[in-house]
């Protein structure tokens, strides 16, 4: 059933190939819808959130011990739901794509398969294949249907992610053959993380550190963490609206998912050693991202940098290691998924009308596009972490966790490890986020309306299709803000015992 879900988009793809171009977009929306429904059925079908349900393990390449092993636990399922939901919404949003419709929707579904595959793959080899399958459709989606400077943006995206995943491959290879049992290579993530939780790092010493850094960079490029983020603004500015919705909504979560599922569990000690460095990077990402976002004039670029800033919380939470922190990191991924998708749709709405994204040229849009203003301010306030919406819960939990990760040696009283400095530094980011969002809100929506934006024909209020995209996203953000327990219980079993391994590793390192 799970593999049916993963390969359903391929069926859709073949359907589109067969049918005339007109039906391409409706088939796409239909497939995404069916995928969401199946996903919900699977979710309700899961007995416990703890173990791996819908587990399938079939021999694929016996020569090197690789299995087609897929399964989904709470962690995987919650991200799967996010993926199917965001891609359904993006499919609706890509209703207005005119150029090579058939090609676009086929690439879209190929991308969807890649994404679904990554979240269910439990075999390192299979994971890596799905991880890279996504690159190709993204390259073409940004490259062909993107904005004026798309050629540069797409190749930069491709080069960046490929360089990252090449390092990831190096790390994976060394890990796998160092842990080869006598019966052959062990590729299954489940077994490897079990051994790691028992006997510490899978590869000891300097090489182990190299593997961890390789994997970390591989995932950090996707998150994107501070030094590796320069591809994100270009990719977002050039990508068409639905694609940047998917890129921000789901693709950025892959990096975080990879870290939580693979990098940290495999190398808890190396992670502890690198803890302070990664915390520093995340804090820089949060504060530096916010500052750069404040300095932007391009609306979409501002939101791209705000994503860099928000995703800094994910790595911060992960490094802090307390159950609350990792819970917060995971929740930030979900929250940021829906909120950033909504933000990009809002940019898309005004871009479709004004065909430019320069914030300074906008003004007073609120007065003759009231519904649009309500949705936009909802998204803005959700993103700057207003309570009642998912952003706040995520930020608050991550901060509480980072603050709580503070161990004092009872005897000597000196501090074994503490990430409170990171929490304090990151707090500045919260204010800055508030500042640049409100500045943007004022520049674009408030103040007097330049004449060009007043006539309703060229600047109509939000259309039904756009509402069909924005309202569900807003509803989910609100639902996640008011009742977080529904989602947290899904992934908490996994994150809690990951927290235990990390805190033990940190204690061991410090003590």
């Amino acid at each position, binding site marked *: 059933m799970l593999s049916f879900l993963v390969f359903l988009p391929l069926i859709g793809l073949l359907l589109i190939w067969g049918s005339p171009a007109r039906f391409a977009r409706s088939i796409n929306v239909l497939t995404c819808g069916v995928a969401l429904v199946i996903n919900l059925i699977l979710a309700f079908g899961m007995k416990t959130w703890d173990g791996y349900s819908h587990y399938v393990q079939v021999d694929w*390449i*016996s*020569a*090197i011990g690789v299995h087609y092993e897929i399964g989904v636990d709470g962690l995987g399922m919650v991200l799967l739901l996010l993926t199917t939901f965001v891609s359904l919404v993006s499919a609706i949003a890509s209703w207005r794509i005119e150029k*090579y419709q058939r090609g676009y929707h086929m690439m879209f579904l190929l991308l969807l398969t890649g994404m679904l595959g990554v979240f269910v793959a439990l075999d390192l080899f299979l994971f*890596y*294949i799905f*991880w*890279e*399958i996504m*690159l*190709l459709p993204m*390259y*073409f989606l940004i*490259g*062909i249907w993107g904005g004026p400077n*798309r*050629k540069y943006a*797409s*190749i930069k995206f*491709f*080069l960046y992610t*490929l*360089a990252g995943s*090449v*390092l990831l*491959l*190096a790390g994976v*290879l*060394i890990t796998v*053959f160092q842990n080869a049992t006598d019966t052959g290579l062990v590729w299954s993530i489940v077994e490897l993380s079990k051994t790691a939780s028992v006997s510490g790092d899978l590869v000891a010493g*300097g*090489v182990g550190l*190299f593997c961890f850094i390789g994997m970390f960079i591989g995932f950090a490029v996707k998150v994107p963490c501070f030094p590796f983020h320069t591809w994100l603004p270009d990719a977002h500015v050039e990508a068409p609206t639905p694609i940047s919705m998917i890129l921000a909504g789901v693709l950025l979560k892959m990096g975080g998912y990879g870290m939580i599922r693979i990098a940290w569990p495999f190398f808890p000690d190396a992670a502890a050693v690198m803890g302070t460095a990664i915390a520093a990077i995340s804090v820089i990402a949060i504060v530096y991202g916010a500052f750069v976002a404040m300095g932007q004039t391009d609306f979409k670029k501002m939101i791209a940098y705000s994503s860099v800033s928000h995703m800094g919380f994910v790595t911060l939470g992960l490094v802090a290691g307390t159950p609350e922190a990792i819970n917060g990191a995971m929740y930030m991924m979900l929250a940021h998924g829906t909120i950033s998708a909504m933000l990009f749709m809002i940019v898309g709405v005004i871009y479709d009308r004004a065909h430019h994204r320069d914030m300074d040229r906008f003004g007073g849009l609120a007065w003759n596009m009231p519904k649009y203003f309500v949705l936009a301010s909802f998204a803005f306030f959700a993103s700057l972490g207003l309570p009642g919406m998912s952003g706040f819960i995520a930020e608050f939990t991550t901060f509480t966790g980072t603050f709580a990760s503070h161990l004092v040696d009872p005897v000597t009283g000196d501090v074994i490890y503490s990430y409170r400095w990171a929490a304090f530094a990151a707090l500045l980011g919260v204010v800055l986020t508030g500042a640049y969002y409100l500045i943007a809100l004022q520049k674009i929506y408030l103040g007097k309306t330049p004449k060009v934006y007043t006539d309703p024909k060229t600047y109509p209020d939000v259309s039904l299709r756009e509402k069909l995209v924005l309202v569900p996203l807003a509803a989910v953000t609100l639902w996640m803000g008011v009742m977080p327990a529904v989602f947290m219980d899904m992934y908490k079993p996994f994150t809690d015992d990951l927290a235990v391994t990390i805190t033990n590793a940190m204690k061991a390192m410090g003590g």
Partner: protein
Amino acid sequence: MDFSSIIPVALVTLGLLGVIIADLLGKGQKPIVPQAIAVLALLAGALSALGLEQSNDTVLGVLRPDAFTVIFTVFFCVVGAMTIIATTRGEAFRSPGGEFLSMILASVIGMAVLTMSVDLICLYLAFETVSIPSYVLVGMRRADPKANESSLKYVLFGAVSSALMLYGLSFIVGLSGGTSLDAVAAAVQNGAGSQPIFVVACLLVFAGFAYKISAVPFHFWAPDVYAGAPASVGGFLAVASKAAGFAALVRVVAAMTPEGVGDAADPMGQLLPEANALIVIIAVSAIITMTFGNLAALKQREIKRLLAWSSIAHAGYIMLAVTVWSPYALQALIFYLIAYLFMNIAAFFIAGIAIREMGTGELRSFRGLMTSNPGLAVFMAIILFSLTGLPPFFGFIAKYHVFYAVFEKGYIWLGVIGLVNGVISLYYYARVVAYMFLDELEEGEAPPSIRMSLVDKVFCAVTVIPLVPLGLFWAPIWEWAQASIPAVLGL
């Protein structure tokens, strides 16, 4: 003394004779007849090689028909057949094609013998039988000034490097007191390897092989020759003669490293393997070849030159497998060559068609190919992304095995350099794709119109489409390659 082992070679020679006779007799008949004879002869050679029962005892003390040879003989026959089919419509060859076919067959015979030979004399003889026909092949279109120039360069470069090799071989023969590889192995066994003169000899011998596989110090001829020669000949050189070079190199290196395999106990983190003099030279050359190949390719504006530099880069990756010298590595080498065969033949073939239809190989002329000929564009994209080594394709698995071998032996930095080279290669491969898919045509500029005959389409399909399924289900090829390793290492 049974001669059953040389049946495949014999069949191909028969084919050669058949072609020459057909060429003499039938003045007026269509060129299809000699081509059919040639292709049939090659297929027969391949099938008989498969049927051959491998044995380690040598024929006349010179040829050893072990499993290693079988694989490569099949490999060469298949490549030869493909090249012939690829140029069926090539009106570039005004003559009824007799010369072209006979040269190809001669070259294939040389390659088959080269992989079989375990004697230095026979090795040199086969080496030259491969090179000389390829000089002719390159210069086949006498009217075309570029062909002349490239064949001249090819001849001069080939002759000099084979002379260097020969000089090296003479010393090795002298030192080891025998011309057979066993004698050389015995000499190395009892310490001949450490003499300085032996190291010099190794370097000189490496010159010959470097020329054949276009490794760095002796790679200069490749870009000019591939650009000048007709595309299918370029493909033949890039795949077949390179594979032959590697097969012979493996035989020689096997002779050089008698005492088991591998080197220092735990080389974790070392940069270069130091099994013996030849391996060190190859390792250094491998790194430089990869980097040079990829860097230069960044600058290329013409499809054939780009493919030339990319084949140099791929030679570098394969040399990595040779330097690591573990059974897994050799298996990866063979696997990589097979993958490389599919990718490169198809690439050169499509380049050939494009140049024939559009007149130039300039990358800019490919703009807007997606609109005019989406099928070809998708095929080319699959080839290029497979050459880069992206997962769903065959190329990724080939590279994966090579780098797995490198990392398994612990040469982490060597592996990282290789992987980074892979990333650089993405840039120029994706640039071609970008020209085809991403570029908008200014108005008034017509997209390239490429008419492909049925044979062309079928050929493309046969070579390109397997790149995807083979990328996911490649186990049978892997087992097939595994069978040949004990033979060549057991010596």
